């Protein structure tokens, strides 16, 4: 994992040298704000409320079904009880969270933002980062806790999604919060006639998706334990069309402890790497009508995860120690959203997970499963730039250990934004 550490050193060194090289400037007192004089020098503060009602026809709730999906089973659920706690959506009313966002320019060289997610039970730091504003050569350094810019949907906050729920492939490979961790990012906008943005990131590695225990009998590994690279490419289209294509790769340490005999105590431990790679594409058409009428957004992403683990200890089957567990899982989604009328949009999404869903076990056995699918339709209404109401219906077939199960879901969602809400990326 040494390259990740070098990345951190290099990034910090570049920033220090470059900021040092820039003389302090006299500047306009209005500098500190992008926005209006009403907030000059004060940070922009906003709160986003995201609430929804959810109903589905499964016995234990869809969150539980997804937690049980073979091959994708969330690792933190493998400790014994098999149930997922505090996972959304639950039946009935859900207060996804309230995002409290504070952002401002720190000084002429950087801007910062803090995003605290408040749930019904707790407050957690969703994001807290700085990013440079004035590095030369198209470079930008970002550090703190933030969403990785891998993929298209990963850096988006839930209120920016065009559907009430996360695509299955993201939820199952990266967890409910996506790839969000403490780390550093260096990105570079190439001086090319096409839009070409390259980024490398190093993260601490404290996620569900890249789980790390570091306790006996598992070996310790120094952070950063996750490395990410991505590339975004956009042709220089004129007029109302916008296209962005992306590829991404994530490589991280992966450690797991499992309870094979279901006695509530872990009995075998695995250590190795988990790698995710994928592609993403988005097309947007900005129709010459107000309030979003006639606009199109087409987007899709594919991602695949390969885990390559060694059995470092096994209390029940010492003969298997040293043998490998290799798994491969993947999934994709494609969706289209169209502005049917002023302020009204309709969208459809089709997704599959587990087209590849294979585990090569230390015992030499190979497990394979079929793909699950889900189809969703939504209608949303946007009274103003600061609020949105949505109805979504999803129908899916999930391939579980004991056969497939169908599930129908309903979402009624309301999103409100209060205060100086910032602009969204493409």
């Amino acid at each position, binding site marked *: 994992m040494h390259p990740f550490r070098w990345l951190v050193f290099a990034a910090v060194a570049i920033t220090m040298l470059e900021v040092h090289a820039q003389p302090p400037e006299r*500047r306009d007192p209005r500098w500190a704000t*992008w926005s209006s004089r009403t907030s000059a020098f004060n940070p922009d503060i906003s709160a986003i409320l995201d609430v929804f009602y959810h109903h589905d026809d499964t016995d234990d709730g869809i969150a539980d079904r997804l937690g049980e999906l073979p091959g994708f089973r969330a690792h933190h659920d493998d400790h014994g009880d098999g149930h997922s706690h505090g996972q959304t959506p639950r039946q009935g009313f859900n207060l996804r969270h309230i995002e409290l966002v504070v952002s401002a320019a720190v000084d002429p060289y950087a801007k910062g933002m803090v995003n605290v997610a408040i749930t019904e039970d707790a407050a957690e730091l969703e994001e807290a980062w700085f990013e440079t504003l004035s590095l030369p050569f198209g470079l930008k350094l970002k550090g703190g806790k933030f969403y990785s810019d891998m993929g298209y949907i990963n850096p988006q906050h839930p209120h920016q999604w065009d559907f009430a729920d996360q695509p299955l492939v993201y939820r199952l490979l990266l967890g409910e919060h996506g790839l969000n961790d403490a780390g550093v990012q260096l990105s570079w906008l190439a001086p090319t006639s096409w839009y070409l943005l390259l980024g490398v990131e190093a993260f601490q590695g404290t996620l569900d998706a890249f789980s790390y225990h570091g306790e006996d009998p598992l070996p310790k590994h120094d952070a950063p334990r996750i*490395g990410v690279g991505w590339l975004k490419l956009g042709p220089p289209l004129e007029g109302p069309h916008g296209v962005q294509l992306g590829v991404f*790769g994530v490589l991280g340490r992966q450690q797991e402890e499992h309870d094979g005999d279901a006695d509530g105590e872990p009995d075998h431990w695995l250590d190795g790497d988990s790698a995710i790679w994928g592609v993403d594409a988005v097309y947007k058409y900005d129709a010459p009508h107000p309030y979003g009428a006639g606009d199109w957004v087409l987007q899709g992403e594919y991602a695949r995860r390969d885990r390559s683990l060694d059995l470092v200890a096994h209390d029940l089957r010492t003969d298997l120690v040293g043998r490998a567990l290799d798994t491969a899982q993947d999934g994709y989604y494609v969706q289209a959203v169209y502005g049917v009328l002023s302020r009204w949009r309709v969208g459809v999404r089709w997704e599959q997970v587990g087209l590849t869903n294979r585990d090569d076990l230390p015992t030499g056995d190979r497990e394979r499963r079929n793909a699950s699918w889900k189809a969703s339709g939504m209608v949303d209404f946007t009274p103003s730039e600061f609020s949105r109401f949505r109805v979504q219906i999803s129908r899916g077939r999930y391939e579980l250990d004991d056969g497939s199960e169908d599930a129908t879901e309903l979402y009624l969602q309301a999103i409100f934004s209060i205060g100086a809400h910032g602009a969204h990326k493409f």
Partner: protein
Amino acid sequence: MNSVCAKVFSILAVVPSFLVGTAAASLRVVTTTSDLAALAREVGGDRVDVRSICTGREDPHMVQGKPSFILAARDADLWIRVGLDLELGWEPVVLEGARNPRILPGRAGHLDAGALIQPLDVPTEPVSRDQGDVHPSGNPHYWIDPWNGRVVAGGIAERFAQLDPTGADQYAVRLADFQRRLDERMFGASLLERLSGDEAWAALHAGELDTRAAAVGVPLGGWYAAMRPVRGQRILTYHRSWTYFAQRFGLEIVGEIEPKPGIPPSAAWLDSLGDRARAAGVRLILQEPFYSDRAARRLAERIGAAVVVAPISVGAEPEAADYLSLLDTIVARLTSTTR
């Protein structure tokens, strides 16, 4: 993964040496709107390369920060914005994405044209979003007042000269020529043979233009004279984007078809607006081309008024190809319908 990292670093290390030598032959200017681009072209001529983010056919509040906009901003020496929060929804994404420190707010390469003019509709009471998409710093649709066009062109020329001192004389000559043409279109050529443009504008601002013209014994022409039959008329507009134009030419705006800025009208609102408009004797409804004119036509039929759809930005229609022809078009539309 290791080799990918190594490759990325070798690219990062090599590329800066390519970039050091990219000195521009002329000034590369990116404006947020087509109107600012038109003014920048008038002042800069061939010496500057001007690109606009908006084409004039869309609502400049509602633009998406696309990759191609980021590319334009990346290469710009000067970024000119309308300001007064017009571009708030997308400008930060473009400027931060472009990684071009030269054009960040407060730098020489960032010109906020809104800071050059005297804003109207500045809220005097605390604002809240229940008033719709209000602009706390004032109404940003100032460019259709020819005086503001004249002032902004002056600010652009000054900034061009600062960034490209060798071209300063050229910019000054072009600015004077543009302002001369604008003044002639505004007041008519014969007045400007007797008064300087500055004197004519000063007289207009003091409310003495007619007496001044009578004193020097020449008839007033141009947009000013053409708009005379319409002066004092009460009108409705769609969005609150005609305030500056109406004030300059003496139209009285009684209300807007949008109940609140950015909120499309409901049937109940149109009913009450219709009653108000009829009581006020509204004969004219003015709106920009990118909104549907259905509500305006229905209302016009009810109250016996005419609907005038006029471009509010350069490039919105082929006739409005530059700044002066934009104003020609608006004046012609207004004066031909209201005889």
